[in-house]
């Protein structure tokens, strides 16, 4: 683990402009999401502060705008800027929860499958094949289509059910490579139990490729949440979501009210691009093939 933070990596990081831009953007987005209640001009989901009379106002630099709404308002009189800030929270909460929960399940299942093999391995891998064939997006849409009540937690749950196999597969691959290494055999012959071998000796060395998957997956999960909310099977109307904002804005693009879609859309793209820039750097740094060459 400590090897990951070796000075070479830090130097490469500082020399890589796209990694720098990506992580600075990400930090800004995290900051905005965490402090949304303080930064946002209004709470768009508090009925006391929302005034229906402020509906469909244009952004600040256009005629007929109101200075309290720098990016305009939607059809309910909610400020676009405020809704984006609150929506960003939902995006990041869903993104991080999905990555953490599905990686935890996937890593454990992948480790057990690779270490013990046999029926467990066969079942996990067949399950993984099947889920891959259907794709995470399709499974999540279908699962949410079946659920009676939908909320942030259900969205996270539905994505995780389809998503953990990705981690199981990656973990299994790297554990299979590691488990016959001399140091694992040494640990076993010195009397270490399976649990200790798996978590102390194998897992730390299997983690680097999993970190890369996690970084990419954060972007995927955020896009998926937006897609589900856009379709109307994700986060309910009463909660902020960037995907939902775009779905509402879609009804007004023919009326020339582009700010309802373009601002949340651009935010979503920027978040995903920032994560992808960062994960590109991470992949280059942690890729054992490239590391061995240097």
């Amino acid at each position, binding site marked *: 683990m400590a090897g990951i933070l070796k000075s070479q990596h830090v130097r490469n990081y500082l020399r890589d402009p796209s990694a720098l831009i990506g992580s600075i953007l990400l930090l800004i987005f995290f900051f905005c999401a965490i402090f949304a209640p303080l930064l946002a001009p209004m709470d768009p989901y508090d009925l006391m502060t929302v005034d229906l009379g402020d509906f469909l106002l244009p952004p600040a630099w256009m005629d007929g705008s109101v200075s309290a709404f720098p990016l305009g308002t939607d059809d309910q009189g909610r400020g676009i800027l405020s809704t984006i800030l609150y929506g960003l929270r939902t995006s990041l909460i869903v993104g991080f929860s999905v990555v953490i929960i599905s990686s935890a399940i996937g890593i454990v299942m992948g480790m057990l499958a690779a270490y013990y093999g046999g029926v467990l391995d066969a079942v996990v891998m*067949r399950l993984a094949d*099947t889920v*891959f*064939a*259907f*794709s995470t*997006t*399709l499974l999540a*849409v*279908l699962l949410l*289509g*079946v*659920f*009676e009540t939908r909320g942030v937690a259900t969205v996270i749950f539905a994505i995780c059910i389809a998503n953990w196999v990705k981690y199981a597969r990656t973990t299994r691959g790297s554990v299979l490579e590691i488990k016959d290494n001399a140091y694992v055999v040494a640990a076993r012959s010195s009397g270490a139990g399976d649990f200790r071998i798996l978590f102390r000796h194998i897992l730390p060395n299997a983690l680097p490729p999993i970190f890369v998957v996690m970084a990419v997956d954060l*972007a995927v999960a955020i*896009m*998926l949440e*937006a*897609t589900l909310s*856009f*379709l*109307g*099977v994700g986060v309910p109307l009463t909660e902020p979501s960037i*995907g939902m904002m*775009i779905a509402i*804005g*879609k009804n007004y*693009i*023919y009326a*020339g009210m*582009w700010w309802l*879609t*373009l601002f949340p*859309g651009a935010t*979503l*793209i920027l978040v*995903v*691009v920032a994560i*992808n820039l960062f994960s590109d750097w991470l992949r280059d740094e942690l890729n054992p093939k490239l590391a061995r060459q240097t």
Partner: protein
Amino acid sequence: MATYLIKRLLQGIVVLMAVSLVCFIMFRYTGDPVLMLAGKYATQQEREMVRVSYGLDRPMYIQYVSFIGGVLKGNFGKSYISSVDALDMILERMPATLELAFTAICISFILGVGLGVVVSVWPTGLVARAIMAGSIFGISIPTFLIGILLVMVFSVYLEVLPSFGRGETVQIGFWRTGLLTADGWKHIVLPAFTLSGYQLAVLLRLTRAGMREVLSEEYIKTAWAKGLSPFKVILKHALRNVLIPVVTIAGLSFGELVAFSIVTETIFQWPGMGNLLLTSIFETDQPVIVTYIMLAAVIILTINILVDLTYAFLNPKIRYE
């Protein structure tokens, strides 16, 4: 090979059984079909009649067996909303989805592989850089946003392409096609590009990665040394070997295409299966949802098996016992 095929088919059947069981159980425990069928204002007596006439009063396992029996005969039950055969409803909309998917696959294949070759042959040029930057956006913009942006530019701002429906269609037997009229083609452009967007970027990147690897191989150097034309070296010798994994990955991600077709059809009000699925979800029209899931499962599993077999056929190194 034959044993492998049989094994795969059996596996496929097991998956289908599992899917049907999960569908069945989930729909018995979420929502009350009696309420859906009889309506909100039905009396207790009317509800009881519905329960008996649809067989909902029988034990679970009998209901499941009769459900499977019906499915095998092609009887998936009737839509709660329109009382039309669920399978017929979906099959009627299938041509629209298949035409859209087919057009999108063609676009992503021709452009993805084509641009991938261009980028790998001239890797340092301005064009290559622009294409690669574009591909990063292709994988960073979710499908629904690609669709909305295309509508904003081409339908709202430039007013050159329609963003709604299939346009003029022609009925040929059971197949209603939009690909025989100019209007139909005009209508398919935006949805097809929306649906192909993500896959195009993935294929481009795969082709580029594969070409870069293959172009530095010894046999390519030999081909150049023999004095073959660049056309022959790049397309016949290099691309051929790159295409096998590219096609495989494209085929295996068919499920993704089905998922994104739901999104695309919603944006463009495309009268296909995905659009029907989403409407049915909002109306809790369970027979239609179950039929869609089962049908999608059959299609996706079939394509997966076909891709595996083609892969084995194309690559003599792979032999399945």
